[in-house]
């Protein structure tokens, strides 16, 4: 873009104006990239061209400087970021972020709340117990990635944007389950408390540890539960809630799987370390001595039985849910490159696995 020298000279000579620097007007530094919108509009992938798309393996500065902008001396540092790209990256971060923005929904206006009618007490209470649990879970699911936002460098901004979209998703999940609990006269029931497994997610000291525990393990399990939710739903409002939440949760799982794959491809020496995180997480997740999930499990039995009368049917479907959760978890680990997890998976999950296909 040409800058008329006369304009610059005029600005410099304007009476009463302080001396103008204008050193930022450096046409020669512009890479001259013109981004064009594609089928999905002007997405991040469309603007990540040339120098703007070159993601450094190491983020070397601790300032807010945006990737592709021109460095300036004397700028204050704002944070210690995770420097290595391989520690936080996932190749699908931009796609999932854009998808998250496109597929947002409103718990206030996109749920047909008018379809919620009075239910038998035991069914209403079971649904409200599930909602109580999910409200807590979603609070943690927003907190956990939120803790990492300040540690993502602007050089790796795609990951930060994805995490922000996840926090927004989790906020909406928290509010929609709270609304469902309060919309039909029952309200929130027994707090389940952050169980040991969830506390373990919050305590993660490493991004990949957090992502494997939360995105791949915990959210994978919750995604399957959401998919089941349509079956236990008593009305169109609940069906819609679970369908939309399942879509959101699938994005988070998708990020986690691709992040884990990236880590294992670029830093294969971390394999045993990651196994160690999962050893601990599987042991804590749904540990039999941890009573925090009792209310949830019993409420699921009731809702899966339909009306709370045929608990055998409820137990059969709950087992089917648990089997799907364990098998899908294992299959996602295989996709990520951690297929050897099958041999060391905690027996509580391992006993639910189908035999390997090959």
């Amino acid at each position: 873009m040409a800058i008329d020298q006369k304009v610059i000279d005029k600005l410099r000579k304007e009476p009463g104006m302080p001396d103008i620097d204008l050193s930022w007007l450096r046409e020669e530094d512009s890479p001259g990239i013109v981004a064009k919108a594609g089928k999905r509009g002007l997405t991040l992938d469309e603007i990540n061209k040339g120098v703007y798309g070159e993601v450094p393996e190491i983020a070397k500065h601790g300032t807010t400087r945006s990737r592709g902008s021109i460095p300036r001396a004397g700028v204050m540092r704002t944070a210690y970021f995770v420097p290595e790209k391989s520690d936080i990256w996932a190749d699908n971060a931009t796609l999932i972020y854009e998808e998250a923005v496109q597929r947002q929904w409103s718990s206030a206006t996109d749920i047909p709340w008018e379809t919620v009618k009075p239910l038998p007490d035991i069914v209403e209470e079971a649904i409200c117990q599930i909602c109580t649990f999910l409200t807590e879970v979603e609070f943690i699911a927003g907190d956990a990635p939120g803790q990492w936002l300040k540690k993502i460098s602007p050089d790796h901004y795609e990951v930060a944007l994805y995490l922000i979209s996840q926090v927004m998703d989790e906020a909406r999940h928290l509010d929609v389950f709270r609304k469902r609990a309060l919309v039909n006269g029952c309200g929130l029931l027994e707090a389940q408390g952050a169980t040991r497994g969830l506390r373990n997610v919050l305590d993660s000291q490493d991004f990949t540890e957090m992502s494997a525990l939360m995105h791949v393990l915990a959210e994978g399990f919750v995604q399957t539960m959401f998919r089941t939710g349509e079956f236990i739903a008593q009305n169109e409002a609940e069906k819609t809630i679970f369908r939309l939440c399942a879509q959101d949760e699938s994005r988070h799982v998708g990020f986690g799987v691709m992040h884990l794959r990236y880590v294992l491809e670029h830093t294969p020496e971390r394999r045993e370390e990651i196994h160690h995180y999962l050893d601990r997480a599987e042991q804590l997740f749904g540990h039999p001595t941890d009573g925090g999930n009792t209310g949830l499990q019993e409420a699921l039995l009731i809702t899966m039985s339909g009306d709370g009368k045929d608990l055998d049917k409820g137990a059969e479907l709950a087992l089917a849910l648990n089997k799907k959760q364990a098998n899908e978890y294992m299959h996602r680990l295989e996709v990520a490159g951690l297929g050897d997890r099958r041999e060391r998976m905690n027996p509580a999950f391992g006993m639910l696995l189908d035999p390997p296909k090959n």
Partner: protein
Amino acid sequence: MAKFPSVEWFKAIQDLVNGDDGIRKLGTCDAVMGVKVQDKAFEITFEAFDCTGVREISEAELANTDFYLDASYETWQEMLENISQSGGQPDRHLTLNTIDFLAPDGFAKSDDQSRKDRFYRYGQTFQQFFNASAEIKTEFAVPA
């Protein structure tokens, strides 16, 4: 009237959903969905806001899709008849998602769980795709 399953049937649905505001409001969808009905197989491609391709493929080519829907002919017929009779609002046990949950081997199949997760990530787009069949007359023809 279009026969199910056939390329003509899927193209009729494609014409209905492309440009439909309801589908567009659901957001972008990027996936290649396979459909297996007895010995017939089809590939339906979604890009951004549109269904961009429908074609018949061989059974072996289903492995190239992100996932494929596979159920007995009776299940397909029950699901589509229910969609038609309900005006595109199927009963909960006949949604794609619940058929998938209740079937021991699932409805959506893939050797790659990460690609299969696209079925769940864009679930409402695929449901809307099949719900659109309520607007056409379907002739059920068991493949030879």
